[in-house]
């Protein structure tokens, strides 16, 4: 077997090992984050836990989730419409900073 092929074998072993290591680490981190950073204000998330039903009840539940998920994508592509570019521009210069001035009190709500 050529040296290159042996090297490739080493690369494969080491590489897939590292990929799995990294992904498992990320898994742990994601689990930790979702556990630690609980939603404070209860915005109706499209991914809110669903009632444990049975059979077609579960199916309906899932159907809702799917609809919700697709809705997210639609919404994300719909978002820009209400506020045209220029509006955002001024928002940057005027709007946003003004909002700051007026909202310094209620700022914590961003947290």
């Amino acid at each position, binding site marked *: 077997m050529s040296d*290159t092929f042996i090297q490739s074998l080493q690369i494969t072993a*080491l590489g897939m090992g590292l990929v*799995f290591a990294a992904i498992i680490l990320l898994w742990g981190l994601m689990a930790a984050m979702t556990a630690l950073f609980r939603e404070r204000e209860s915005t109706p998330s499209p991914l809110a836990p669903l009632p444990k039903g049975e059979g077609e009840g579960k199916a309906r539940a899932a159907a809702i989730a799917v609809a919700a998920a697709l809705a997210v994508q639609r919404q994300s592509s719909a978002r820009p419409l209400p506020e045209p570019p220029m509006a955002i521009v001024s928002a940057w210069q005027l709007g946003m900073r003004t909002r700051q001035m007026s909202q310094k009190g209620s700022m914590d709500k961003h947290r």
Partner: protein
Amino acid sequence: MDLTDLLAGFADFTWANALMLVIGGALIYLAVAKEYEPVLLLPIGFGCILANLGMSAYDEGSFLRVIYEAGIETELFPLLIFIGVGAMIDFRPLLAQPRMALLGAAGQFGIFGTLLLASALGFPLNEAASIGVIGAIDGPTAIFVTTKLAPHLLGPIAVAAYSYMSLIPIIQPPIMRLMTTRRERLIRMDYAPRPVSRLTVVAFPIVVTVIVSLIAPSAAPLIAALMLGNLLREALVVDRLSKAAQNEIINIATLFLGLAIGATMTAERFLYDPTTGIQWQTLMVLGLGLLAFIVDTVAGLLFGKLMAFATGGKVNPLIGACGISAFPMAGRLSAKMALEEDPDNFILMHAMGANTAGQLASVIAGGVLLAIVSGML
């Protein structure tokens, strides 16, 4: 009077160049008529045509060379594209079901399987690795890694990466049917996601950037660009930057990336080198690339079956097929397959979770491969 400039056009034009024009035209045909990743294959095809009319990335003073040096050699184009892609990805399905991440790792076997085969076929390590990275099934990652290891293969590798990507709906289904039993495809999965807070979705891209940059520094720029885009998206307070990333930046980068890559597809590098003869490697790259897609899918499905067995039939192996990345096509395809078997079986959210994990794992795998190979060369 000396008219060499006038006749230059015909003088340098060979039958191989003519054939390359046909190949460029074919890529444009796939883009326009078949809608195979048109935003990339059309510029690549047109760039390929220009490359064989004296405007290649290797011709001194060619404007495509200027673009090539500005965006490919600096590696800016794939990174700019990733900023835009990151701003289009919603990681909530993955954050809500973190264990789906495992499937993303499994979907990268194709990279290394192809690397092994390519080196067995006698490709030097840098070329073998570049060919293997087609198995990342992620254009910018493949281009980024190839630019560093074997830039002369950019053309065939990019063509393979993007044309097969749009063939996913044709490549995957037969493999999925072959490798899973009807009972497995009928498995329904509990959908009980954890709630995902805004803090989580904002912190996620930052945490991922830090972790991955430390584990696989070579993947750092790619993951950083992807996560920067995602942060712009989830921050909500920088809408104008998020929109710029998803429109101006990615559009311009995509157009010029395609042109610049096409501009590397000169006849002598892609088809026939007067000194070394026919460039069989091009065909081999295309063949091995297809193989990479298949191995990815097979490995993903096997891992899905393993998880189904380990969980006592609580995981539908079909979602194993979306670990390959190819976001979001692979994810939707798996969900579609499940629905075909049972119109009441909704696994889209699980599929998208595995699919986005595949996107992350692809970048990590690409970076790991780049780091190891760079260390060996």
